[in-house]
């Protein structure tokens, strides 16, 4: 069973704005029937102001596809078209308190339906340039097509290259066999053969951060989530960084709250994206850690 957030469940069980919208003047039909999703987004736009007065959807898809559609309609109502187009798929996922990596494409479909509906309203033709493959890297949600395209475009020949360019394989490393298989296939196209142990391209190597730079980045990520935590009467504090383990303490209303695990998961994801490496976030009580680290 997927580990859906309460927000996803709520939007699936009680979808907002479902069904046909009478008098819609912008309609976007997008889908990927092979992966089991299709979505019609209907907008009623006020011509004078470009404001979206109402938005409805119909979705053929799984729980998170329906929840993403429902969330999207809520997010764009009352916005102008240009404001609405700024809603990214990550925004949709964030609105739902996150989606499992396998389900991020559901939010992508929502974003595409929005583009298609706006194009339809403006009398333009929208064409989809997004192709999606099987999910390879579950840590960073990178699919096969993305990896293939990147290998082709940059002449990559090692798993490390692929990780440097796409992040795929930079986490738990269980997808390395899958990445090697893609390398074998794509390298054969250019008459090359994959050799394990090929060093990564020099220029693609990440510059490597000093400890201080890393800690500053971590602080910056925590700073960015702090306002949201404070709004709920809580806070987060960085206690220590030990290699790939980041110790934090949750204080105030956040400590022991039901959403604590979910919140930390979201922060961990953000940190991984910023640091471009696999890290683990561990909630700890402030006192406990200082004693432990004094006693190696």
């Amino acid at each position, binding site marked *: 069973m997927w580990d859906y957030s309460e927000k996803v469940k709520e939007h699936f069980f009680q979808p907002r704005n479902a*069904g046909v919208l009478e008098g819609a003047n912008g309609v976007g039909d*997008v889908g990927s029937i092979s992966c089991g999703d299709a979505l019609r987004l209907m907008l009623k736009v006020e011509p004078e102001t470009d404001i979206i007065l109402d938005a409805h959807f119909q979705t053929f*898809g799984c729980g998170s596809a329906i929840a993403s559609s429902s969330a999207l309609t809520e997010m764009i109502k009352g916005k102008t078209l240009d404001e609405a187009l700024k809603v990214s798929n990550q925004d949709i996922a964030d609105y739902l308190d996150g989606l499992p990596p396998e389900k991020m494409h559901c939010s992508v479909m929502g974003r595409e339906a929005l583009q298609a509906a706006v194009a339809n309203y403006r009398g333009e033709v929208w064409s989809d340039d997004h192709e999606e493959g099987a999910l390879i890297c579950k840590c960073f949600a990178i699919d096969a097509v993305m990896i293939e395209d990147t290998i082709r475009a940059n002449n990559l020949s090692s798993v490390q290259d692929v990780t440097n360019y796409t992040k795929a394989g930079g986490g738990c490393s269980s997808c390395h066999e899958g990445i090697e298989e893609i390398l074998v296939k794509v390298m054969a196209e250019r008459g090359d053969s994959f050799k394990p142990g090929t060093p990564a391209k020099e220029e693609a190597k990440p510059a490597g951060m000093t400890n201080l730079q890393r800690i500053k980045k971590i602080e910056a990520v925590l700073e960015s989530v702090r306002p949201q935590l404070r709004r709920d009467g809580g806070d987060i504090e960085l206690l220590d960084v030990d290699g790939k383990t980041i110790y934090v303490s949750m204080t105030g209303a956040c400590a022991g709250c039901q959403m604590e695990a979910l919140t930390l998961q979201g922060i961990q994801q953000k940190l991984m994206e910023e640091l471009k490496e696999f890290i683990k976030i561990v909630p700890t009580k402030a006192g406990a850690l200082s004693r432990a680290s004094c006693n190696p």
Partner: protein
Amino acid sequence: MEGIYFDNNATTRVDEKVVEAMLPYFTEQFGNPSSMHSFGNKVGLAIKKARMQVQELLGAEHDSEIIFTSCGTESDSTAILSALKAQPERKEIITTTVEHPAVLTLCAWLEKDGYKVHYLPVDNKGRLDLEEYKKLLSDQTAVVSVMWANNETGTFFPVVEMAELANAAGAMFHTDAVQAVGKVPLNLKDTKIDMLSVSGHKLHAPKGVGVLYLKRGVRFRPLLRGGHQERGRRAGTENTTSIVGLGKAAEMAMEAMAFENTEVKRLRDKLEAGILAKVPRSFVTGDPDNRLPNTCNIAFEFIEGEAILLLLNKFGIAASSGSACTSGSLEPSHVMRAMGIPYTAAHGTVRFSLSRYSTEAEVDRVIAVVPEIIAQLRKLSPYWEGDGPKEEAFAPVYA
């Protein structure tokens, strides 16, 4: 756990009598059956008993034909890899497009090592073409691996006949029978089946134990080496508690065989007829006249399976689906695709699999709930309008 469990092809509850039989082997009878003292000896005898109970269920000629393993997947891998190792001059495998991933994924991996794998297609009811099969058999065929009953649709394959044909061509025959064992009377001694896989947890034994049946005289190359257990054919200290449990479960399956094929089948048929009568645009997948007595796989057009499962779960009903989204892959079930079921229906397939613990009241409840759920989701579907598919076909821009 309260609720209606109609997902017995995924796993079954361990029968309480099975648990009871197992319990002493955790504590008082904890010995290693290989040990030269009475702690070990008693456990050795318990394993011997379990082996005979499984022998009885499979209709095997000798108890030494029963090799205990850790699961159905291990049995499948062992059988296929052994057949290839034992006949290095033969480089081809024949299997079907609808096998369990335990076989298909292994075959795809073997292709990379230069083996030729033939995948027999199925028709729209999930049936194999035996003429096509005969053409593929040759002196190059090392092993044929065909499941006894399909896990998604329950459809039976004519494995007894196929084993004879393989035998005539000098090829080994393996069948993954994890869904069939306990539901179909077996008499392996009268067949040409060389190897057969069993999974304990599909027949009310615990998870983590399986069996490979290996007909006496069939050349064999072990997968796990390093010990004399299972006569050197599967090294590693025996999972004694689970083996004892599987023995007990096998004995109980023998007793319940008739019940599975009468009462469980009657409930399954009632469930199926009840749902089909109340839900328009739904149909049974697979071969309705030739399948497991407990399994029913229904395609609900124009809606998606995971959404159905989530709503069923809200009503405390457990089932499974062939939709892409339940597996984390992008493709719907390979079984549905192999039968040529259109995407709009393949994504909406739901498998209900009953057991001897299923009740009439549960069936009635599911029949009452399913039509509501389907109607609710169809209201959300862009393919649907009122009581049927939209007149003007919904044709989205596909990614």
